[in-house]
């Protein structure tokens, strides 16, 4: 019943699972943000996540080592990022459409490999909860913030790190310059192609981790198409967050909290059609994109091809 939603246990449950569910969004969106800040819109995130999700799962299943699984997912994400960088930077392919190509490729490959190599539903022993010493023992706060698996902590740690790299380092300055004014950056001796390769590959790596966080940390199984559009939402979150790490954090939390609420509504058997609950995050994405249209502006060179004169 509705009143059940307001009990302390349920609220703690919602907030705590909301924080956990933010993990894939954070990894994928922060990675995507670096690409977009350098001028490359990678729409293949969903495909990278799916492939990362399967590879991470499979390697964990075979080696019983979750970290090896995550490493493999990172590697496959990097490869997909490399391919994306090559076609967009060197071959000037339309970014939106080639991203869709990589999405189809990742979806097809992950389904293919799953059917061929695993076939049935199998579980893995994924990441275990780590209770932070002392902090994890605090009532309520401990349960909400300090009783999660390692990937959750890493995802939240990534936000300030990304902010620092983007705003306080030479590398960040180069990334922003390449995304705003590639001609000027080039004339100052910054390698536009090099920076874009770096950010897109990095984006792939983070998408790979995002995928693996679903299959070896959140659910500990692999299902076909298990990302269910989260990769696309991750791209939308970059817009929502105005291309800033902390903006993305806010958006990711909003989404994951709504997702958590939706799951708990189903668990508690509150008479709202499950389908309506499931579609809430998507409706919200559209609303948010609509309302944020005046807010901020993307990198000037986003989706634009850079070609040296002569």
């Amino acid at each position, binding site marked *: 019943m509705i009143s059940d939603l307001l009990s302390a246990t349920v609220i703690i449950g919602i907030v705590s699972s909301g924080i956990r569910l933010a993990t894939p969004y954070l990894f994928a969106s922060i990675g995507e943000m670096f690409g977009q800040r350098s001028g490359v819109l990678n729409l293949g995130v969903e495909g990278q996540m799916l492939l990362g999700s399967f590879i991470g799962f499979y390697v964990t299943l075979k080696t019983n080592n979750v970290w090896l699984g995550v490493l493999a997912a990172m590697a496959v994400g990097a490869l997909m990022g490399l391919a994306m960088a090559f076609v967009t930077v060197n071959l000037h*392919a339309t970014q939106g459409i080639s991203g*869709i190509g990589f999405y189809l490729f990742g979806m097809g*490959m992950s389904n293919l490999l799953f059917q061929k190599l695993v076939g049935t539903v199998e579980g893995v022993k994924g990441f275990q909860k780590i209770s932070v010493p002392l902090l994890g023992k605090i009532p309520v706060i401990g349960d909400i913030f300090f009783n999660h698996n390692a990937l959750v902590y890493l995802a939240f740690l990534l936000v300030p790190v990304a902010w620092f790299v983007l705003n306080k380092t030479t590398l960040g300055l180069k990334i922003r310059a390449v995304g705003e004014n590639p001609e000027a950056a080039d004339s100052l001796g910054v390698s536009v192609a090099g920076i874009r390769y770096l950010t897109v590959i990095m984006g792939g790596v983070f998408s790979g981790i995002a995928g693996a966080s679903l299959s070896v940390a959140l659910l500990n199984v692999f299902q076909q198409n298990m990302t269910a*559009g989260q990769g*696309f939402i991750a791209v*939308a979150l970059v817009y929502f967050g105005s291309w800033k790490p902390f903006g993305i954090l806010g958006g990711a939390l909003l989404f994951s909290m709504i997702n958590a609420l939706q799951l708990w509504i189903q668990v508690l058997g509150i008479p709202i059609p499950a389908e309506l609950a*499931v579609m809430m995050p998507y409706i919200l994405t559209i609303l948010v*994109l609509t309302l944020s249209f005046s807010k901020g502006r993307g990198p000037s060179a986003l989706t634009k091809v850079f070609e040296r004169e002569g």
Partner: protein
Amino acid sequence: MPPKQATADLRLKDRAGSIFDQMMPIFATLAALLVGAIFLLLLGANPLTAYGALAQGAFGSFNAFAETLVKSIPLLLVGLGTCIAYRGSVTNIGGEGQMIIGAILSTWFGLTFTELPGWLAIIIAMLMGILGGMIWGGIPGILKAYFNVNEILSTVMMNAIAVQIMNFLMRGPMIDPVQREASSQIPQTARLLESYRLPRLSPTRLHLGLLIAILLAVAVYFLLWRTTLGYRIRAVGQSQPASKYGGIDVKKHIVVALLLSGAFAGLAGMMQVYGVNYRMITDGSATGFTGNAGFNGIVAALFGQLHPLITIPASVLFGGLLVGANAMQRVVQVPSALITALNGLVVVFVVSSEFFRKRSQKRRLSQSGAEQATPEDAEMQQEAGEA
């Protein structure tokens, strides 16, 4: 060499070069198949056997070919919508959702109004399908034109929303009364009246939709290259500032491009119900109903270089790949999902091959001393003069 002959020579070279350019998508597909062959080898299957089975399954018999054509109908329709949208620089990837909503509206109509003569019911059902697709395409269109919402993202979200609407309706309000009573609760609607179904070329499953889709392809060709509306959509696609300067209402034409594009996908959804399954059924995902046609239609259109008439054979080719994939799965035990992956590669390779096409075009133009304008620009300028 006399100058006249030199020109003729160049022209000949030009034509050969441009034929080579036209072949780019075919090279891209061959490249994808080559990569596929490597995957097949890695999975322990003989690529020749696999592709042989695929071709046999797609084109090997009269019945197989009819099945291929059945599969190509939604690809062609979605592909035609893609031609319009992408020519207008609008990246509509909401084909899945637009198909679903078109199918829902037309199915609802067919199951609710059961007293009409068959031909009339089919025509109204088509219009309902078109209407559904237009609603689902129009929303992202308005959001893009007036609120600057990236249409790629909004159409993806609209896909996800449509799937949930479908699931909700199939499990509840629109469920087959028989299912409700039998408590088996299979999420599907009742079957359409026999008189409401699109006529078939018996004994195959090939239905009238193929003819309609081909006629529409011709219509889209005329729309894009013989009407002012088509010219304006393409002008907006080429350059928004120039179009605005030329007095074209850019926002309106963005919406129109998405409306039209959605209309074709909606019709495709209607035909899956009225021509193939005679009912709507869901497995919980979009693919269960659309068979991924909303995405594969884009692949076919890109392969057809966004030309409605070339999209016809392209759709047959990709319809064949889908049908053949099942045969391949049976013969070499490689899941048919391989074809989805290869379709993705075709997309990547086709958009990448543009680079080589443009480069060789540029080289030829500079050789023949023409100005540094692409033929598309010249074509647009010439038409602008006529208009």
